[in-house]
């Protein structure tokens, strides 16, 4: 019976949270909510990458997933919500 260390336990918890946040990002009502949850998902996967010793990938995922992609999504949502007469 292998002993599970605290680091491994937190790793498994983060993996579980990763799956939950992915499902929430796809299915939560409200687009902005989903985008913020997506950036939480990115941060969690950054931690997983760092635990799997992929430091370069972790850095790229942190910067792109949590920074750049969120900015793009929020901009696009802003561009597809404010319509001219407030209708639709």
């Amino acid at each position: 019976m292998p002993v599970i260390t605290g680091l491994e336990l937190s790793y498994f918890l983060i993996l579980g949270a990763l799956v939950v946040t992915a499902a929430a990002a796809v299915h939560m009502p409200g687009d902005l909510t989903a985008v913020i949850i997506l950036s939480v998902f990115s941060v969690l996967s950054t931690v997983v990458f760092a635990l799997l010793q992929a430091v370069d990938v972790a850095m790229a995922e942190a910067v792109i997933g949590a920074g750049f992609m969120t900015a793009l999504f929020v901009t696009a949502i802003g561009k597809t919500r404010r319509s001219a007469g407030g209708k639709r």
Partner: protein
Amino acid sequence: MQNAAFVAAALVFAIGLHGMLTRRNMIRICISISVMESSLVMALVAVAYVPGGSAPIVSDGQTMFVDPLPHALALTAIVIGAGILAIALALTVAMYRHYGTTDVLAVFGKTREGQ
């Protein structure tokens, strides 16, 4: 550790694919695409993992390293994913400007009316 990451990557991939197949809002489809892409990166990183290996930065006294080649591929995939996402969102904005909605089915209906 590796197996758990594989399971998580597979589940996240399934969630993303399911979202892409069933959601109607283009923004949600873009989110699903980036979730799927992230799961592929996770799979690559998990394949590269070696138990007991350290990060692939060579320094004295270390002999076990994780595989650096999938990391390079994953980096490329992440940056290209950002480019793909930008194009998808640009198409979404263009679609909204043209049809006034981001609902895919509504756009299908409007294109059918136009014929």
